[in-house]
């Protein structure tokens, strides 16, 4: 199980993104290894929010549908939010609350790591695939 960050998903969806080629190769490699891809509901919301602003609802919906078909969605419950909030308030790293929820989800799911282009996750003690 690998948890996806918005950076990798957005890099994949945009053919001219600086990380596009790497995102495509990385995801292909992870899937070939048989890894399940997990997306938190918060990150899904971020991806759709960014795409709405940048390329409009039609493209956001198309990618959203594809994500729902190809990944597993982890729903953040009250206990996870509490843990994410605790991490967010204590960390000195540049992690958003969404990032903290992603770290909590990865740990709870015993994920192999997080697929991300954000180096801050490495400092959070999580294995990073980039």
């Amino acid at each position, binding site marked *: 199980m690998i948890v996806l960050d*918005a*950076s*990798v*998903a*957005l*890099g*994949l*969806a*945009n*053919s*001219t*993104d*600086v*990380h*596009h080629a790497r*995102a*495509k*190769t990385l*995801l*292909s490699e992870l*899937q070939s290894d048989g890894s*399940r*891809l997990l997306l938190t509901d918060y990150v899904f919301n*971020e991806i759709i*929010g*960014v795409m709405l*602003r*940048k*390329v409009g609802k039609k*493209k956001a919906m198309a*990618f959203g549908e*594809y*994500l729902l*078909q*190809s*990944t*597993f969605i982890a729903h953040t419950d009250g206990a996870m939010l509490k843990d994410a909030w605790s991490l967010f308030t204590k960390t000195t790293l540049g992690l*958003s609350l969404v990032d903290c929820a992603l770290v909590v989800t990865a740990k709870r799911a015993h994920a192999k790591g997080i697929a991300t*282009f954000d180096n801050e996750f490495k400092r959070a003690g999580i294995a990073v695939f980039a």
Partner: protein
Amino acid sequence: MTTITVRDVSADAFREFKAEAIRQKMTVGTALTLAMERFRADVKKRVRLSDFPATDWGKGNERVSENVDEILYGDS
């Protein structure tokens, strides 16, 4: 947990499914839940995220993947 009614199920397939559930010491509900989860996993395995047909988001959007927080929440 929920209670459901399902129409148009093959009688033979259900009979065999129920018998197998009993052999495995499971309730039909538990076996059906497992079967549904396996079905979802199989479908997701067939749809590879890396095969998504990417599109060109145009000039100025080359670093969107690095600037999610700024785009959504502004500079902090």
